[in-house]
Each structure stands twice: as C-alpha cells, then as structure tokens.
C-alpha cells in the first residue's frame, strides 16, 4: 500500500490491515526466495566454483557479484540476474506495448512508452490502413500525420534494439493501430504479466482491453480490425465482415458516437484496473472482469468503485482467494 492515501474509517482500516497481513503471510510462506530480494550493492551469493553467467542487473566488484538494481534475484541454470521491481519498463523483443506519440519525425514517430528512452516507430514498420503493401514514395512521408499525430495513443510490438540501445517498434498487423475513444491508464509495468495474449476483446462489454507490457493500459470501444496479416487466414476470413472491416480512419467518420452504455463499461473497467494497481495486485484480464462483476454485484456506481469500501472488499476477497488456493495445494 505504498503511499496510497485513502480516506478510511476505523473499521475499514482494520479490515484492510488484516487482509493485507494475511496476504503478506501467505506470500512469505509460498515463496521461499523472499530472501533473494536485493538492493543496490548487495552481494549475490553464488557458488564460485561452478562459474556463473552474470545477467542483467549484476556486476562484478572485487571478485564478488553485486546487484546494481533493487529487485529479486533470479537464476536460470548458471545465469544469475536481478529482476527489478517498480522500475521503469524494460522492453523485451516481442512485447506488446501502448505508447503515446510525442513527435512526428522524418519517416518515423517517436513514442513515449515509459522506457528510459523514447521508442521509434518507423513509417516502414507500420501497416498502412487497408493493409496494402506500402509504396516507397515521398507522398507517403508527407502524409504521416494522417496515420498518427502527436499525442495519439498507439499500440505496437517491440521489434528490437539498435546498436545504440534505442528501441524500435513495429506494427505487424491491422490490430496495431491508433487507439481512440477510450481511456489510457498508467500503472507500474511489473504489475502486467507477460502472457500469450495482450489484446483482449471483451465481448460482453463491447470493449477492447490492451494490457501493454510497459504498464500502459488501454480500455476503449471495440473496433473490428480487418486483419490481413494474421497467419490463420482461414478462420479469420470467415469472421471477416465487409461492413465492419473499415479502416481506422474511415471508422472515425462512420461512427463518431459512442453509446453511453459502452462509455460506462469503459469507465468501470478502467476503475477496476485502478483499484488493482493501487492495491499492488497483478493486473490480468480475469481479475479485471472479476472486479467489474464484484462491483456490479455490490450495486456500486462507477465512481463508488474508487471509494474506500471497495478497496477493502477487493483486498479481503483476494486474501480469501489466495488462502483458498494455498490450502488446495
């Protein structure tokens, strides 16, 4: 609950504390590597006879391996590295991220993605609307603003690092696009677990949820993406519906109005994410939906989700769930 200011009354405070204590005790019993967390300059105990590979966040000093960042020591065979907690985002190839365009430069956009540097999305790494193959013309470069402008929210994939350490992004398919009509939330990157899927279409709410690995989370109205690049064309082609398959730009003109219902859904989902991140719980699609359902079952209004009572309920619920899970084990 680092630095969270909630206006709790006495009983709520008590309940929350018990819940958090319970959680803490659970985590300390389940994971034995709690002693493996280090701060900067801590020596990492290793068996020198075997020889080690020193990975990220480690360095050698006077024959000892020391941590250069705060975090948890991880070991894979002989490799030792420190996984940082509550740090800036550390990109890995293949990550899905959400970012904000801060500059339109020649042939490229610069994006703020909560990394130590700005990320670069090349025009050539971007899919054109309609998914047609790009022609290399000057007109294209002049029209870059018709794709993304400054302050647009964009999702993309991490493609790789340049020699100077700068980060390059790419958009493999139509689903990497400009995001509009929704909310962007910033949470700590470590709360987003890397999973197979980061794009989620929540059918019941008509909402798209994108959990960017960099801690930027997008909740917005669902847009049917015409996806030409997906390998599995067969399945997609069945779903493909000519009327829905408009490009991003044409969508803007077609439907400029988002229904109130969907707006409410977006807000509810966004608040769920806020609650989770404040409490320091992992943000996953399942948990978010669970929270939304919980709020509805408690008959809470959207704004009430951010009230103290709901936090307490969520914390208690989570504590209960985890203790059940450990018992089962």
């Amino acid at each position, binding site marked *: 609950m680092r630095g969270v200011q909630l206006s709790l009354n006495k009983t709520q405070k008590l309940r929350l504390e018990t819940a958090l204590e319970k959680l803490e005790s659970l985590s300390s019993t389940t994971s034995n590597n709690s002693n493996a967390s280090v701060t900067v300059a801590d020596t990492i105990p290793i068996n020198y006879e075997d*020889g080690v590979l*020193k*990975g990220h966040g480690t360095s050698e000093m006077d024959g000892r391996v020391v941590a250069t960042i705060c975090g948890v020591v991880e070991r894979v*065979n002989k490799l030792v590295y420190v996984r940082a907690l509550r740090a800036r985002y550390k990109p890995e190839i293949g990550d*899905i991220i959400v970012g904000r365009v801060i500059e339109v430069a020649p042939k490229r956009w610069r994006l703020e993605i909560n990394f130590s540097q700005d990320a670069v999305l090349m025009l050539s790494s971007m899919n054109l609307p309609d998914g047609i*193959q790009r022609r290399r013309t000057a007109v294209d470069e002049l029209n870059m603003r018709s794709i993304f402008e400054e302050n647009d929210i964009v999702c993309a994939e991490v*493609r790789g690092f340049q020699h100077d350490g700068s980060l390059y992004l790419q958009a493999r398919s139509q689903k990497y696009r400009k995001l509009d009509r929704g909310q962007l939330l910033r949470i700590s990157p470590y709360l987003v677990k890397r999973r197979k899927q980061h794009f989620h279409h929540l059918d019941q709410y008509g909402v798209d949820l994108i959990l960017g690995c960099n801690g930027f989370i997008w909740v917005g109205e669902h847009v049917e993406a015409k996806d030409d690049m997906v390998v599995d064309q067969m399945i997609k082609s069945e779903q493909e519906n000519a009327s829905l398959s408009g490009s991003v730009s044409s969508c803007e003109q077609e439907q400029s109005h988002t229904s109130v219902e969907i707006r409410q859904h977006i807000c509810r989902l966004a608040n769920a994410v806020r609650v989770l991140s404040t409490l320091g719980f992992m943000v996953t699609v399942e948990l978010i939906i669970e929270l939304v359902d919980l709020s509805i079952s408690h008959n809470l209004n959207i704004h009430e989700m951010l009230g103290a009572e709901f936090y307490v309920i969520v914390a208690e619920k989570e504590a209960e769930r985890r203790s059940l899970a450990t018992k089962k084990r």
Partner: protein
Amino acid sequence: MGSVKRKSIENPIEGYDTPAEKQQKRGNELLNLDEPVACVHDVSYPEGYVPRASTSNLPDKDAKPAKEFPFTLDPFQAEAIKCLKNGESVLVSAHTSAGKTVVALYAIAMSLQNKQRVIYTSPIKALSNQKYREFKEELSDVGLMTGDVTIDPNASCLVMTTEIWRSMQYKGSEVTREVAWVIFDEVHYMRDRERGVVWEESIVMAPKNSRFVFLSATVPNAKEFADWVAKVHQQPCHIVYTDYRPTPLQHYFFPSGGNGLYLVVDEKGKFRENSFQKALNALVPPGEGDKKRENGKWQKGLFVGKAGEDSDIFKMVKMIIQRQYDPVICFSFSKRECEFLAMQMAKMDLNNEDEKVNIETIFWSAMDMLSEDDKKLPQVSNMLPLLKRGIGVHHSGLLPILKEVIEILFQEGLIKCLFATETFSIGLNMPAKTVVFTNVRKFDGDKFRWISSGEYIQMSGRAGRRGIDERGICILMVDEKLEPSTAKLMVKGSADSLNSAFHLSYNMLLNQIRSEDGDPVNLLRNSFYQFQVDQAIPDLVKQAKSLEEERDSIILEEEDSLENYYSLLQQFKSLKKDVRDIVLSPKYCLPFLQPGRLVSIQLIKVDDNLPSFSVKDDVTLGVIINFERIKGLSEDDTNKKPEDASYTVDILTRCAVHKDEAGKRTISIVPLKDPGEPAVVSLPISQAKIDSLSSVRLVIPKDLLPVEARENTLKKVSEVLSRFAKDGLPQLDPEDDMKVQSSSYRKAVRRIEALENLFEKHEIAKSPLIEQKLKLLHTKKQLTAKIKSIKRTMRSSTALAFKDELKARKRVLRRLGYVTSDDVVELKGKVACEISSADELTLTELMFNGVLKDIKVEEMVSLLSCFVWQEKLQDAQKPRDELELLFTQLQDTARRVAKVQLECKVQIDVENFVSSFRPDIMEAVFAWAKGSKFYEIMEITQVFEGSLIRAIRRLEEVLQQLIQAAKSIGETELEAKFEDAVIKIKRDIVFAASLYL
C-alpha cells in the same frame, strides 16, 4: 522427357483442365519444329473466390510494359508475364535452361516501376551472389543479404537466401510490409529433407497482400502446389508449365569397356530398343572391378580399364573432343571421384596457346585478392596447370574462390571439359554441349540406387547451349546390365513430384510462440504437408467406397454355416502348419534329410493369393538330393547352434520351366504326371513348401547332370507311388521315427484329429460348390480387411499432422524451462529463438551451463565447430586433451537434451543425436582461431578446403546469433567474447569476398 514437346496454346484463365487432360496433351506430341513453342496455362482459385470485377487499380493493359526484352519471348514467358501484369501470382515450371529468369526480371522491373519492394530468394548463397551480379548489371537498385554478406539492405530489390527471408519474417522486418512481389527461385527445393521446411514456413508466413513468383524445375504436381498457395493466401495462383527445351536432347549410352556411343533416345523422344540392346551387348563384363562394387566401394566400375590401357573416361573425352561435342560436363556423385577422373585426363590438352594465356590472366587476377601464403595452397597451385589444359573440376570441396574462377572460365568457354558434382546442375545458366553421366547409380546415404529421372532431368538440363548448339547430347556411361524399363524410366521418366518435407524444429516453435499472432498450430494447418494429406482424403474415401460396394456385391447362400466352416478350415491349417514346423524343425528333421528320401512337396499355385480350401493339400513327390545351411550375412552366425540355423533342401522333382523375354527362368513345380523337365529345386525348409517326409528312400545315381538320369529317378518315384497306391506312401512317424517329443506337438495332433471329425460332420462340406464358395468368402474377408486399413489411414490423416509431435516438443520446451505452461517464452527460450544455424537446444543449454564462459576464445570457437561440421570423416585423429574434454562436455549436454526429448516422447535416437556432433575439425578451427595460416591448418586435417571454409563461415553465422542471444540475457562479457571470436576467425581466404560481388 528429352524431347521438344509442342502443344497447342491453351486459352488462359479458362483453361481449368484436370491433370488427366494435361497428361493427354503431353502425350499428344506434335513434332513439327516450325510450330510455336507452347505451354500449359492453368489457374488455381481459392475457394469462394470472386474474381475482381473492377480493374481500376490495375495498370492499364496498353501501358508501356515495365521491361522490354531484346528478343521475342517464348509463349510460356509471355503467358507468365501476362499474369504478372494482372497482378496475380504465378508458378513457372520449366527446365533450367528454358529461361525462367525472364519472368523474375519482369516482376522486379514491375515492382521498381511501382516503387515497391521486391524480394528474390534462392536456395544457395553462391546462387544468390550470382543473381545479385546479374540483376545489378540490369538495374541499379539491388541489395544482397546472405549469411556471409549484406550489401545495401535498403535497396528496392533484395536478393537473399530463403533462410534469411524466413528469419526476417519472424523478426518482422519492415521489408515484409513493403514487399509487393516475392520471387522464390528453385522452389522445388522444398522437397529437400533438411531445408525444405524453410520454404513452407516462408510461404505460409509471407505477407498476405504480396504476390508471388515461383520458379521451379518441371514438377508433375505443379497444380497441387498452386492450389495450396491459392488456399493459404486466398488469391489466385497461375501455373505456367512447359516441357520445352530450347535445344532438343539426344541420349546416348556408352557401355563400359566398349568403344562407341549408342543412340538410345533421339531428339524426338523416341526410345530405340534395338540400339539399347546393342549397347548392352557391347558391355564388357567387368572382371575384377566387380568384386569391388559388391563391397559398395565408390570406385565402382571406373577401374575396369586394365593398366596401360586408357580408362573409359579418357576414351570418352577423347571421342567427344574428336567429334567436337565439347564443351562437356562430366557429372559424378562424389568429390573424390570428380578429382580422380580429372587426374586421368593428365595426358590431354584441349586449349591452344592464346587460351592458355587468357586463362592464366583471369586466374591470377582473381587470385590477386588472396594473400601470398594462400596463393601457395596446394589446391590453388595444382589447379592452374589443369585449367590451362582446358580441364576443370567443380565440387563443394573446392575453395569458393576457385569454384567461382572455374565457373567464370567455363562460361567464357575456356574450359572444355568440366568434372562436376550434382551441385553444378542447379542455378545459373551454365550450359555445355554435352553432358556425361559417369555413373548410373548414386549413393544416397544407405545404398547405391539408380539415378532418379528427376535428377537425370536436372543434370541433363545442362546439355545444349541455346542458340549455339542444334541439339544437346547426353551420354550415360553404363557399366552394368539394366532392364529397358529401368533405362526408360531414368532417361525418359517424368520429373520428381514436389512433396512436402515438413518437419518441426524448436527454433520454429519458439519463434511462433513468441510472436503475438503466431501459433504453431496455424503453421501446421497451413503447411503444404497438411494440404497434401488433406488432398488424399477424398481419394481414400472413394477407394473405401468402391471396395465396400465390391464386398456387398458378393452374396453367398448359407453364409453363417459357410463362415463356420471357413474358420474351422483356418484353424485346421494353422494347426497343420504348427505340426509341420515342429516336425521339420532342423533339430528333428536334419538326420532324415539323406539323399534319396522321398518328400512330398506342396504345389505352388500360379495365383498365390488364393489359398486352396480343400482339406487335402495338393502335393507332389520329390527326391532329396542334398541340403545345406544358408549362410548368414553376418559373421556371428557361426556361433549359432546348428539347430537354429536355417537350411535349404535341394529336391529333384518335375518342374515346368518358363523363360521370359529377358531370359530369366521361372521354375514352378508341377505334378509328376504333367509334362515338364526333371529339375532340382532348392527349397528352404523353414517355408511351408515341404509338406512331409516319407520313410522311403531311393537309390539315386551319383551323377544327376544328364537329363536321362533325372528322368529315370523320377520314373522310380512314380513306380514307388504306384506300389503304395493302396494305402499311401508310408510317412516317417514323427513320434516313433523322428523322436519328436514335445507336448505342443501332441496337443496339436489331437486337435487336428478333433477338427477332422468336425469336418466330416459339417453338412456344408458335402455341398458340391464348396470350393468356389469358400473362395468367394475369402475374397470378401480380404476386402473387409482392406477397407479397415484404409479407414484407419483416413482417421489418422483427418487429424492434424504432427499434432502429437507438436505436443511432445512443447513438453520438451516446458521441461527445459524455455516456455511457461501458458506458452510464454522464457529467458532460455529467447536465447534459443536467436539460434537457427545450429542445434538450438544443446547450444542454449551449453551456454546456460556456463561452459562457454570459462574457456578461452579459441577453445570456444573450436567447441562451436562441432555444431556446424556435418560430414563424417573416417579415421580423423582425436583432438588434443583440452578440446577432447570440452567435447565430452558437449556430448554430455547433448545426451541430456536428447534424453529429455525421449522422455517427452519425441522420437529421437539418443546416441545418434549425440554422435551428430562431430569433433573432426576442432583442431583445425582451434588453429585457425589462433591465427594460423590456411595452408597450415590444411595440413592438420584431411578435409576438403571448401568444406572447411563453409564450416567456418557457418560458424561465424552461429557466433553472430550468439551475440544477439548474449545481448538478450544481458551477459556483456560473453557478448564481448563472441565478438572477439568473430574477429579472430573472420579473415583471409576463408572470408574472401565472392568474385561475383
């Protein structure tokens, strides 16, 4: 094949002809040379595809073509270009020399005109280099990317190897978004067992909006391939197929030891039977050389020429030169043989003085880029004198630079006689007037087999220079008899069909899992392999149906009781066989196989598939002459007890002898009274041919060679038979005479008796038509069994191919900690993702175990060489102790990886896998990394220069991948070490730039 086949031009687009029609057209040979050369054009549409109605976005039909050629296009080229103009994909299937490059060039020109990117992929680095040069001359905006070099990667037209293209797609290069046309050259490489899968991956993953040009050798199932592309990419794919050769071919045989050539197939594609027979008759039966061939040595047949006399190949080349059939390419199937043959040309000089000077200039200007030391390499210095005489050698063991010089000299016409391996038949247009095959057999890993017709077509494609020669000449050196059908199949057979060689690799899986959209299952579902399996299903269904109909059409009366009888009969037979097996086991019967004993033999029916159904067997009598043990193939047979060995018995009996045209005798045993010769047949007693032994022995004459003697013996047999006519020939009693003491024997005998009783009681046995009925029932049963097996294959193919293997391999990845249980790639997996030029699992494990960390750079390079060296080397000396130790570590790691795979039910032979890592060049690579000169390391090892260079180049590729991998785990020291290693090995002749660049 080798003929010009002219067909009427078909109406494009509408030509939706079935393969059968095509076949018919192909058969319909019009041999008028004046008619225009034609091709077959066909289109595959994806299911539910509606041809575009609006053509607004298409370039105007009358617009200036993107490229104009200074010659008139052949119809197939024009047809293919028409498809390109319509913006649709096309597969061009034609012979190497036909001019497929024109189509590729047009596609490139078109893309450049539209300011779009185009990618040209080829299977071989050398070919990519050559194409790069070729394109660069025509168009300026060309780049090259191979494992060795990268030139101008931002160019609009990129030439690359297919492997590079695949990894670009996995990594998501921007090129994939800009490429409008992808040209796959030599796409028939897809059937390559090891690398073929790369093509499938590349084609499946290719951008959906780009179009393709596939260039392929002639493949009979081009339509199938196009159907697949159409389905996977949801776009029409045209097929332009032609058998056309710009220069017709004549095929000759050169019998070994003979003196002349025999025209076997003329330029019109007619097979000349009598000339073929003459050729075979002229074949001098090989003498001592024969023995060697039996032992499977590679020198087969080439040493037939006796000492002092000219060898066959020398005579052949001499003749070719005399008849002015040069230049000539002599294909053989091994590098050593290639060199050996070239050595035999020592006495020959085919060049005049001017040419010699020319050669020397070209040679030394090419060698100029080498250092002084490298110029002194034996391979370099030995090659020049040979080249100056107009003789060249071309195989993968040569230094790449020498290979290229030889290619250039050959193209300049300065080499008159080139000895090459199969690799020379692929790629750039380098035709000769004549092609010689020095062998009719090729070693394919486990045995010497005939050259396949596909290989023959590919290699003979080098014969005949367009516009220079009226016809190309193919000469096949025959050193053994072969059937006309075999010869026909080889020389005139159809091309190999394009079959998928899909297989899974961990690198592929990890890359697929890593990307958000990727799913290995999708790749499998879209693979050509799956497509081909799916294609087969309707066929199987049809088969099963027709068989079912056939079965149902057989109607029998009283089927139940008949079936009962049938099963009784089966039991009875199997029991009888059991008894016979016991009685006639060598243990019991050997003492009774004396010469002169009468035995009853089962008559072999002509139609073997229908067993007889009477209770009594058809038997005849014969006289034992002798018996002998069958010699086993392996030595340890001698350790076996005599009882266990198998024996054959020579029996004199009446036989009908047939001779077929080929002079092969077939002998069948007939009853004594039938007409036939008395002959001795030898029957293995383990087979069910010998029925029983009688107690009667005849005195047989010592000399049975004269026919009369045999006839007399048989007469005696008949006499004996008539004497015992009343109560049958007395048999040896198994228990009393032969002392068979086995409880199973007694049990069986008792059951036989019981069964015999049942037969008599069985009412249906009295039915007059019992035999026929039983036969019918038998057919029916067989049909049912067949239907069952077809249904089984159908079931297995409807499931996703490789499904089980995919599961198993994913299990391996999880077990080793490469991916998590919910398919997220872990750190180790990310490392393995980067490694595509070596065994990814073993190398990753090695790295994470810190093995690479603790050793010196040179040692590390040396260790990594085991991953890239694949040739098996006989009697290679062991590396020194430190290296040996490292190698054992590698082997341990490999064994562990293999064992995990085995536990996860991946089919793998652990020891085979471990021994696939070869330590043979460790020493050499170690020395190279230490900074030795190339000639110094060549003294350490016996491998071919070219092979070593290739291995070191590949090693550099692996190191580059490891640098990326080290980066991703943040181990900077290791990364620096790899970079250091690259610097250490990347120098001098090993990385000398290609002459084509």
